[in-house]
């Protein structure tokens, strides 16, 4: 994200202007995710987009494919003590610890508010500390018309006694998948951790247990130590690494999982440009989430969508659907 790349942020007409521009290129950006069509595959990732309100102040977020809202748990959570954020080469560490108002408030306050500025099915990101809690939260969100997909986070590295523990073994991942599938008719995407030896085995276990898709990767478990304090920078000690630094790891894992499963993959991890989106789709992603980049450039998702047709033209691509898993063929 160098300064030369700032240029597109000078366009402030998102609605008609953006649509006109997309029409001009005659490119097909649309993809279908578990039977629900997306105008484009670009999805802000959970935890970097709140419940959308902060970004809706900046641009018309209806231009997004959808977005994955802040990880929601059954009970409200304050999260970890601060500092929760640290810098890394080409990336960042976070240990927010699933701060959220709890599913009831999300349903009674955030979803109605979201209706005013986002008019597409939204992806509900869910986390939990027990299988029962995952199921209860998903059952409540299942009733919400606005929710298109459930993205079940079994990979948060920043909370103890939950999160990543479920994503670290094929058996536990399958158990959460089955519990969630039993309470919802909405498509379920299991969000997987990269902090495992064989992510493909876990993806397969989710598929066998009935998952409609998988999302990967969550952040990589990491640490920074301050030289002045001689202590870990984050109050939590460890945190999750994200940003461009993890992009090649994410591409590799999406590629491996694509070979192992037949269900759609949402690819993420360090994506910050239209070129990254295309690379991720070639690896096997049907849709692509953008995370840490939103925090540095709040307009990045809109700018990626705006630039995608031009970059598609550059690489001789007419339809994004056609390139999904393209790196595996021939």
């Amino acid at each position, binding site marked *: *994200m*160098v*300064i030369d790349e*700032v240029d597109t*942020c*000078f366009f402030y007409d998102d609605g008609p202007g953006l649509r006109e521009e997309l029409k001009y290129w005659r490119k097909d950006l649309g993809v279908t995710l578990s039977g629900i069509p997306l105008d484009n595959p670009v999805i802000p990732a959970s*935890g*970097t*987009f*709140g419940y959308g309100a*902060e*970004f809706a*102040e*900046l641009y018309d977020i209806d231009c997004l494919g959808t977005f994955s809202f*802040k990880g929601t748990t059954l009970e409200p959570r*304050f*999260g970890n003590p*601060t*500092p*929760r*954020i*640290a*810098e*890394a*080469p*080409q*990336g*960042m560490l*976070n240990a*927010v610890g699933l*701060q959220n108002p709890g599913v009831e408030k999300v349903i009674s306050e955030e979803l109605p508010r979201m209706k005013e500025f986002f008019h597409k099915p939204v992806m509900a990101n869910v986390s939990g500390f027990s299988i029962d809690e995952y199921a209860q939260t998903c059952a409540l969100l299942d009733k919400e018309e606005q929710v298109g997909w459930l993205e079940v986070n079994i990979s948060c590295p920043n909370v103890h006694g939950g999160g990543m523990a479920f994503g670290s073994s094929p058996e536990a991942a399958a158990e959460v998948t089955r519990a969630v599938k039993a309470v919802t008719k909405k498509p379920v995407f299991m969000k997987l951790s990269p902090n495992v030896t064989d992510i493909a085995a876990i993806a397969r276990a989710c598929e066998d247990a009935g998952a409609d898709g998988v999302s990967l990767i969550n952040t990589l478990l990491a640490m920074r130590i301050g030289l002045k304090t001689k202590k870990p920078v984050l109050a939590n000690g460890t945190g999750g690494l994200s*940003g*461009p630094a993890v992009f090649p790891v994410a591409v590799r894992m999406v590629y491996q999982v694509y070979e192992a499963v037949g269900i759609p993959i949402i690819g993420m991890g360090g994506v910050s440009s239209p070129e990254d989106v295309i690379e991720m789709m070639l690896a096997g992603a049907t849709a692509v989430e953008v995370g*840490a980049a*939103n*925090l*540095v*450039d*709040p*307009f990045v998702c809109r700018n990626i969508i705006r630039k995608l047709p031009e970059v598609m033209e550059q690489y001789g691509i007419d339809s994004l659907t056609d390139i999904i898993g393209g790196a595996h063929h021939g």
Partner: protein
Amino acid sequence: MIRDLYHIHSNKWLTGDIWEMRLIGDVYPITAPGQFINVKADGHFLRRPISVCDWDEETAMITIVYKVVGKGTEALSRMQSGQALDVLCGLGNGFDVSKCGKKTLVIGGGAGVPPMYGLAKELLRAGKTPVAILGFNTIEEMFYADDFQALGIETIVTTVDDSFGVKGFVTDALPEEYDYFCACGPLPMLKAVSDAASTSGLLSFEERMGCGFGACMGCTCKTKYGDKRICKDGPVLEKEEIIW
């Protein structure tokens, strides 16, 4: 909030680790003193939040005064006039001048002094009588005292080592009578001021941030009025809501 490229008009060393940068660009996103901008230093992923010291619509100029505390701010200090800086402008909830009484203490400590300059100007514009109390460790670290004085307001400087002004901390220089206070500085100073002050007041806090505009929940703190994001709901909070 906007994101834009701002042109560096000047970037000048003031004293110690303190630098003053003047930027040319849109000023309208700044609506209150105590707000901040989030700047992208070359070679660093996250932006650096820096409070706005002064802004002027006529010249389209924003002044920031920042302390070099790490590699990001060090990179910023090496930037030169004429270069462009990628900025998110107009962030945070600043000082609400309408809450301030006629005689409002404007208290800054060290790197917390800069936003108080813009606040003092706004208070004057609103017809109030601010009194500046600026705390430094030593005279070598002192900056902007003349600028406050040039506003024509009573300006008290304290130094811990008694090298200039009143000996001690800003709390050693609180006048007997005043209507309100606003403060920015290190956490121990904020707590000491809050404890010592006889009136209500506003305090500006610092925290490591991810985004700076309320999306990532990286800087949340607990208050008596609920969880608040320092970047979006703050950095300025009311004395009454703070849990120390």
